[in-house]
């Protein structure tokens, strides 16, 4: 009974945080399950996959019409992440994860540094004199209504090939290592493609659910998903993510970025050190 209440509570918190930041919640769930509750890592990973989908779907249903996420960007980039995820699952055991840990660890640390620079610079530049031709062709430029600022923000998307490449790598990493489902996506959208933070986190939220669904059946049928762990967690997350999605819209972008920076540094450092066999 105590375990159930802990699962519901952990789910609620992970759901709120995940929906605001566009992350899968693995960073909260995996340590609680493995370190605090002594659950086998195999079941923790299975629960994490379910958590990602619950966060994504919970955030989706908060509003009947989502005016923040960019559906075109999500679906175009989803081609790269899903193919990457399948390739990652196939390459499991063939490709050494060490290189991936190092590359993605460094990329996340760079992304954190880039976010600090954006915080220092104050306002963000959203309109360029020369629009990106690929983004124009794919109709990726869009606008969103910012509830905190009470205005519609028009923005342009840049460096589509770089974003697609990061998404492909992120897909491989999440298929191969089961990590970074959301952090890599926010990084690709915000750092590389220069999207504003709120559309980045909510688009990441949608995408990570679709990517996780691509690998979820593997875990579902190989026995990694324990209903007594996954179900209370998922129920807590669904409620939390619905709340988080509403909170995200009224929070100023700057605050979200301030919360994001230490988390992305932590994940990046953790991954980089894991490449050298050090677990923190």
């Amino acid at each position: 009974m105590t375990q159930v209440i802990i699962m519901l509570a952990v789910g609620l918190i992970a759901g709120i945080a995940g929906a605001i930041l566009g992350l899968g919640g693995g960073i909260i769930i995996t340590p609680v399950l493995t370190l605090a509750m002594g659950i086998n890592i195999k079941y923790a990973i299975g629960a994490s996959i379910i958590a990602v989908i619950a966060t994504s779907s919970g955030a989706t249903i908060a509003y009947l019409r989502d005016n923040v996420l960019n559906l075109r960007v999500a679906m175009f980039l989803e081609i790269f992440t899903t193919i990457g995820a399948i390739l990652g699952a196939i390459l499991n055991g063939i490709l050494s994860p060490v290189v991936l840990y190092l590359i993605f660890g460094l990329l996340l640390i760079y992304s954190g540094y880039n976010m600090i620079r954006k915080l220092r610079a104050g306002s963000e530049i959203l309109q360029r004199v020369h629009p990106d031709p690929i983004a124009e062709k794919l109709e990726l430029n869009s606008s969103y209504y910012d509830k905190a600022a009470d205005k519609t923000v028009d923005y342009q998307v840049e460096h589509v090939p770089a974003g697609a490449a990061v998404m492909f790598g992120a897909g491989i990493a999440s298929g191969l290592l089961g990590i970074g489902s959301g952090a890599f996506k926010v990084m690709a959208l915000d750092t590389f493609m220069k999207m504003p933070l709120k559309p980045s986190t909510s688009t990441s939220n949608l995408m990570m659910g679709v990517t996780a669904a691509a690998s979820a059946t593997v875990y579902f049928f190989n026995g990694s998903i324990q209903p007594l762990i996954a179900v209370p967690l998922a129920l807590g997350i669904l409620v939390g993510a619905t709340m988080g999605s509403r909170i995200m819209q009224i929070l100023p972008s700057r605050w979200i970025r301030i919360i994001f920076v230490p988390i992305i540094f932590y994940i990046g450092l953790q991954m980089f050190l894991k490449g050298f066999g050090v677990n923190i």
Partner: protein
Amino acid sequence: MDNKDAKNAEEEKISKEMAQVEIMIGQILRIGVIISAVIMLIGFIAYGIQGSTGLPSHGAVTITAIATGLLSFKSGSVMMLGLFCLILTPVLRVVVSIYAFYVEKDSLYVWITSAVLVILLFALFIGHS
């Protein structure tokens, strides 16, 4: 002038239609997520009453095992069904997005999103075999 008015009226009609479609899609997704949550909740309450899941505690899970468990209303199988429905909700999201782009007459994105669906179904299939 009349031509321009007609064009504006046409655009307005499409954007109204889009708004209706978006709300309908939002409702479909909400119902999908709520259904999976309710099934999980029922399974979970049943576990509280039955005291066991009726599933093996470790090892691979087969469709047959879940189906047999469902016939005798074993709590573990009901929870697994709920989790499986939850896994399908992002797939539902992709399917309804294809429809949204179709209504918007955006054929490029009907193709792109259909490609995502095909890759996703392929992945779901690989996962099972």
